């Protein structure tokens, strides 16, 4: 454009610094672009660090499982299982007795009379529990032996590791100084294996005693109780029939059977026990935590979905302008309540209230009331529902509001009333939006930590589903809760520490999956409304 000689002199041509200008612009762009990449980097780092810290878990856990077998703990646990079964049967007897007492109390029988009626039953019960005396003795003997061996094996492994560390550092002299204690595993196992013989004799003796006992079982006055008692008898017979299988298992057991590598993974993913810092054996099975998280989330969603969706429909389709202007910000306001405050409120108020309600005469007809634990799935679920409602409400309301006005008008024009329009036009049109809202609510609930940590009761066990609806009044522990509770106390690099990171990784994967599904539904919603 150099050709134009003219009077325009106000703005000089930008010749001098054209290149620097362009460079600056490029630099600024690159700076912003770099920042935008932070999100990708962080997501990658989260994945990397969860893996980095969690990855060693499987190796360590495998070693842990191998030690379990090599030291003979597994062997002892086979016998212990039979003892535990016996105890469970014993407990069932007391349950039957308790039910009897309740039935008789209802008939206003005096205590003496009750005790007299059940005297022969009590005798039977105590005779039953006595039959396992030798079994328990055997278990405690073997337990001592096995833990002693485990300790020695563990110490040896530590020294071995220390030595190889020194070798690696080139300090061969120091390495040579470390003396590995010789462990006579053979004799140790021989003495363990004697346990098998003892078990056989003990179980034979017990079987004989029990069959005698069963033959002389006293009748129970109440037919319902008698039925339960008969059931118990069958169970006992099954138990006795299972004993030879246990001794067979003991005989064929060998400390040198290899444990395949995948056992480490399957014992984490499908393990039903999470036991840590135990003197006997640590188990890192995620199932109880996963079930806890899922149960709590389900209860929360069961409460939050109807409330959230109903209030979204109400606000977007029914409420007056004034109500809308009040309700929408208020529900958004609720979403800002810090979770730890909700958790505290759960401990201080909700838990008490739930228990008090369960004790009230109004709910006397409910079979599983009164409840024993004030902090349980239900308490945590109620509070989490309050956290999920704003998420579900906001997103569902958005989806409902974005349904094109034309859909609505067409429906009204055909003479449909408001409810019909909502049920047949608006909700179906925004359904995938609402589903995505619910999914994001689920994501929020399952990842929530403080409320479940404070209010779910923190009992690491799979809830007893035989109780039906009563299951939701049992305490559980959750994935988020276990991380928060145990992370602060573990030794860095230990199996337990890595197990917690693995739990975090599972949690991360689950929420990513939920998020992915939610996005799918959002995309479908966008398409459905055009």
């Amino acid at each position, binding site marked *: 454009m150099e050709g134009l000689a003219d009077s*325009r002199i106000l703005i000089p041509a*930008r010749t001098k610094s*054209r290149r620097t*200008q362009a460079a600056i612009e490029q630099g600024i762009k690159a700076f912003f672009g770099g920042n935008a990449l932070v999100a990708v980097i962080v997501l990658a780092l989260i994945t990397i660090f969860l893996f980095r810290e969690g990855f060693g878990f499987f190796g360590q856990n495998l070693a842990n499982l191998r030690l379990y077998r090599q030291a003979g703990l597994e062997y002892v646990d086979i016998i212990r299982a039979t003892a535990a079964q016996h105890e469970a049967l014993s407990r069932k007897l007391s349950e039957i007795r308790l039910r009897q007492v309740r039935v008789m109390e209802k008939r206003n029988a005096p205590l003496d009379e009750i005790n007299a009626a059940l005297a022969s039953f009590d005798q039977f019960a105590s005779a039953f529990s006595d039959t396992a005396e030798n079994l328990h003795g055997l278990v405690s003997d073997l337990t001592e032996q096995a833990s002693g061996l485990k300790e020695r094996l563990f110490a040896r492994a530590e020294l071995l590791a220390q030595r190889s560390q020194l070798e690696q550092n080139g300090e061969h002299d120091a390495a040579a100084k470390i003396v590995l204690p010789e462990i006579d595993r053979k004799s140790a196992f021989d003495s363990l294996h004697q346990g098998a013989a003892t078990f056989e004799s003990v179980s034979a003796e017990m079987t004989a005693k029990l069959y005698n006992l069963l033959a002389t079982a006293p009748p129970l006055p109440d037919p319902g109780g008698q039925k339960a008692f008969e059931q118990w008898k069958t169970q006992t017979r099954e138990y006795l029939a299972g004993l030879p299988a246990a001794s067979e298992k003991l005989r064929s057991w060998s400390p040198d059977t290899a444990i395949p590598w995948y056992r480490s993974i399957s014992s984490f993913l499908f393990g039903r026990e999470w036991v840590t810092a135990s003197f006997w054996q640590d188990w890192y099975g995620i199932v109880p935590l996963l079930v806890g998280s899922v149960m709590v989330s389900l209860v929360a969603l069961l409460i939050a979905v109807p409330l959230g969706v109903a209030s979204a429909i109400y606000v977007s389709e029914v409420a007056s302008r004034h109500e809308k202007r009040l309700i929408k910000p208020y529900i958004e306001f609720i979403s800002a309540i810090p979770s730890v405050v909700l958790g505290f409120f759960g401990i201080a108020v909700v838990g008490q209230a739930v228990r008090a309600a369960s004790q009230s005469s109004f709910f006397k007809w409910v079979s599983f009331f009164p409840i024993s634990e004030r902090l349980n799935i239900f308490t945590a679920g109620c509070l989490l529902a309050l956290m999920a409602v704003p998420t579900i409400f906001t997103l569902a309301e958005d989806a409902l509001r974005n349904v094109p006005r034309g859909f609505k008008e067409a429906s009204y024009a055909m003479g449909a009333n408001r409810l019909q329009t909502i049920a047949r036009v608006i909700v179906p049109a925004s359904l995938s939006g609402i589903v995505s809202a619910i999914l994001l609510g689920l994501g929020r609930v399952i990842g929530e930590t403080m409320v479940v940590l404070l209010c779910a009761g923190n009992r690491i066990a799979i809830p007893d589903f035989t109780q039906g609806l009563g299951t939701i009044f049992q305490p559980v522990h959750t994935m988020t809760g276990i991380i928060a509770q145990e992370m602060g106390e573990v030794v860095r690099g230990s199996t337990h520490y890595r197990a917690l990171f693995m739990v975090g990784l599972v949690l991360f994967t689950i929420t990513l999956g939920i998020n992915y599904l939610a996005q799918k539904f959002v995309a479908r919603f966008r398409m459905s409304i055009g």
Partner: protein
Amino acid sequence: MVTVLEMPEITSPITVNQPATAPIPEVERGIIEIESVDFAYGTNKVLHDISLNIPPRSVTAFIGPSGCGKTTLLRCLNRMNDLIDGAGITRGSIKIEGLDINAPHLDVVDLRRRVGMVFQKSNPFPKSIYDNVAYGLRIAGITKRTLIDEAVEKSLRSAALWDEVKDRLHVSGYGLSGGQQQRLCIARALAVEPEIVLMDEPCSALDPIATAKVEELIRQLKEQYTIVIVTHNMQQAGRCSDVTAFFYLGRLIEFDRTTKIFSNPAQRQTEEYITGRFG
């Protein structure tokens, strides 16, 4: 050059009497030379082989039915289409004063300063009237208050807005009426002293009185500037342009003196469009 036009929508066969890009006799060399330009949004080609020379210090009108590509061509002239993902010239060249504006090393910022633009919807910045006009100058690095004051007054006078706003230079540009806002945008464009001013349907949102004022302004401005205006309004094109280009379906159908186009168009489509039979 185009000799056969493919326009399946029109049933009657079209005969082309003379090349569509016949040079206007008086103009030897245009200030803007567009040579066989193709333009596409992604895979969607919207301009086909456009060639025309725009004479300096005159008003050139682009007319044609909606979607014929006239705005796209206009936005090519100061490379505003750069802002649209995937859009670009696929063939041909555009030269302004002999310089290819799509050359890789061309400074697009400089180009835009020299080729100003007024948009269809008036878009004053949410600043005071004064700051609106001074914006381009400040951007260009001028800080001297007296220079800016002078330039603001000059531009507002040129845009015939000075008398209406001189007492409230420091109130928001949003407080002006639609016609005043559009003239403010014109003043803003003039302040950086461009050589060419592109106007994209500048009056489409204005009432007749405001339109008349803007048109009057356009006629005055051609003393100093080359003006290219896109318009839907035949009368407007007739009233204020010197040369007119008629586009249809992304092709240039006819380009000639406005008087010629409006009195004796060479192409039948042009005639049909101008007389309002389609479009």
